[in-house]
């Protein structure tokens, strides 16, 4: 942005607008002040003239001698008093010709005379006497004029100063804004051209623009993370889907080349079906995670009890644990304390994934413990085991799609389980944390207790939600 663009900036325009408003109100104020001051000063002069005129007018027969005396006392005519006949000829006094300005009788007027080589202001009044003569009484108002000029000058200078400072302030503010906007546009242009690491320049201030910058930077962090994730996911999909697809293709080609009997064909087809199912399973798992992350599933939210779902999960997995020789125990909190709003199927699936993992990686004779809790305004569920645990440096990574610990590469599973858990947790406002205490790991899903939060009504008050709730009520009674 160039300097000529300055007047186009909002801050400059605002400053000028306020300067204008301030200037107009100051001008009005000064005008009023000026008017008040001058009328006060004039009225004191008028008062003196008034006193003299009473003296002259009440004794018209005495005017000429009085004026003569006055002229003798005031030869320089600083107080010009004079009488003229009706045609304007001088009769007596110390003002020898009528003022150039026409005289409105009985009204105060101002005029100028040369005194000591300078134009000097006078204020006076003219009267028409009963015989037609004209009486002029006036006072020198040089000091009042001086004061008025001083007042006007100081107001003008003050105005110029204020205007100058105001414009300078506007320019400085606008320059600051322009510099920041230039910084921001530059950063945005670099981001648009592909440098996602770039951030908008921040300042220490807490102005509205700075708050916006912080907000946008937070958003950019999210975008950068998402872009990285998308790239990671694309790589992972390429890897994890290419493998089964390669196997599928290889199997089919081999069947085509070598197979001779119907049974062999059937076997090859079965193998191909199994591979295809695995690929489809991976795909639908990915789609589900995307759907959950999208937040669309909130439509299925209803009032649920985390403890009930955890109990169902434990009951669901109990036979498998038993079969593997793993002790699966459940330690419930009082059901009234673990209520929240959520999607029961998703929460079941998430907790189920955790329990399934814990059982899968527990040694024979190990134990898996599921616990729901409500303490210090937090509610949640904890799944802990005494298996090998997750190394500290892998704890972030396990939440990524397809990530599998090196040790678990040879066990079945898509590596999507924990990312689904993470997505479900995020959808429900639950924090997912993984602690590893050797031996074993401990996964916690927790959130602030929503006890005082009104239940978010499902946006589709459908039959399915009600059916599901009823079905669940039935299953408790069994």
């Amino acid at each position, binding site marked *: 942005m160039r300097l000529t663009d300055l007047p186009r900036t909002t801050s400059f325009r605002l400053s000028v607008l306020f300067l204008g408003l301030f200037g107009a109100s100051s001008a009005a104020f000064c005008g009023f002040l000026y008017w008040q001051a001058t009328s006060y000063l004039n009225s004191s002069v008028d008062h003196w003239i008034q006193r003299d005129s009473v003296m002259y007018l009440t004794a018209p027969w005495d005017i000429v001698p009085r004026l003569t005396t006055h002229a003798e006392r005031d030869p320089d005519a600083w107080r010009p008093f004079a009488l003229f006949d009706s045609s304007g000829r001088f009769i007596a006094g110390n003002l020898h010709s009528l003022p150039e300005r026409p005289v409105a009788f009985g009204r105060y007027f101002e005029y100028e005379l040369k005194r000591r080589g300078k134009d000097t202001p006078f204020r006076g009044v003219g009267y028409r006497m009963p015989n037609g003569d004209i009486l002029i009484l006036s006072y020198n108002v040089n000091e009042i004029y001086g004061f008025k000029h001083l007042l006007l000058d100081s107001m003008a200078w003050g105005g110029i100063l204020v205007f100058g400072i105001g414009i300078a302030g506007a320019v400085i503010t606008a320059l600051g804004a322009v510099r920041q906007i230039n910084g921001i546009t530059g950063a945005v242009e670099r981001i648009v051209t592909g440098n996602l690491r770039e951030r908008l320049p921040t300042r220490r201030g807490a102005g509205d623009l700075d708050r916006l910058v912080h907000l946008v930077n937070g958003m950019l962090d999210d975008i950068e993370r998402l872009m990285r994730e998308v790239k990671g996911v694309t790589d992972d999909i390429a890897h994890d889907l290419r493998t089964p697809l390669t196997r599928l293709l290889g199997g089919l080609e081999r069947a085509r080349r070598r197979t001779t009997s119907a049974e062999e064909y059937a076997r090859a087809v079965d193998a191909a079906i199994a591979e295809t199912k695995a690929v489809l399973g991976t795909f639908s798992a990915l789609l*589900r995670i995307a*759907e959950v992350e999208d937040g*669309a599933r909130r439509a299925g939210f209803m009032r649920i009890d985390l403890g009930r779902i955890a109990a169902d999960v434990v009951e669901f997995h109990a036979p*498998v644990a038993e079969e593997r020789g793993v002790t699966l125990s459940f330690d419930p909190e009082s059901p009234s304390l673990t209520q929240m709003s959520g999607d029961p*199927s998703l929460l079941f699936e998430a907790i189920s994934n955790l329990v399934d993992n814990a059982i899968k990686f527990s040694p024979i004779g190990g134990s898996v413990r599921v616990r729901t809790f409500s303490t210090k305004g937090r509610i949640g569920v904890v799944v802990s085991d005494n298996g090998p645990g997750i190394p500290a440096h892998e704890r972030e990574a396990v939440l990524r799609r397809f990530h599998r610990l090196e040790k678990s590469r040879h066990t079945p599973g898509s590596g999507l389980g924990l990312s689904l858990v993470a997505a479900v947790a995020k959808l429900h406002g639950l924090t997912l944390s993984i602690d590893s205490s050797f031996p074993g790991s401990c996964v916690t899903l927790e959130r602030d207790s929503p006890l005082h939060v009104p239940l978010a009504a499902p946006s589709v008050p459908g*039959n*399915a939600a009600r059916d599901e709730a009823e079905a669940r009520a039935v*299953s408790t009674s*069994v």
Partner: protein
Amino acid sequence: MTRVLVVEDDAQTAAEIAAALGDHGFEVECAYNGQEALDRAVADRYSAIVLDRMLPGGIDGLAVLSTLRGLSVDAPVLILSALSAVDERVRGLRAGGDDYLTKPFESLELTARIEVLLRRRSASDRQTMLRVGDLEVDLLKREVKRGGRAIDLLPREYRLLEYLMRHPGQVITRTMLFEEVWSYRYDQRTNVIDVHMGKLRRKLDEGGLPSMIQTVRGSGYILRAPD
């Protein structure tokens, strides 16, 4: 013979569905858009309708469904959809659908669900005793006996057995069991249900009796009296 109308705009998918249902023993007719589906379903009586959610030409699956229900066509309708979101499902069921299946699906899943829909209407809910072969379930006392011998089942095993007993001789898939017995809805890909079924099967077959629950193609179960 059971006649099923398949409404699906993609000809190849329609042919696959028709083939799967045909192999199962149904007589299948296909419609490829909403208008055709309406014409056929109103003109003819079908035992069941398989309806794709997305159809070209203005009348989509849900519109077809609500129109049919408005015309008192009460054949059971299974909705097929590529949309798995929960509110899509709810919308489908509210429009008058009886079941909802997300693409892609296995043919076994489709035929099993249609079988259950077909027989749901005929089965009476007022039964108090279910019998298959020498196995009997007293629904009031919640007692299970095989050949007069009482079998002690856990609540969940009882519910699994009750569901299978209500549909004897029909294929029930793992997903159907999970939805019906656990009341949660998602694609269960673990073998946990197999383990539950294994335990139930062992309890039923205790004492060397011939097995009553058979596994079908790896993903379904069928309960029938042993020959």
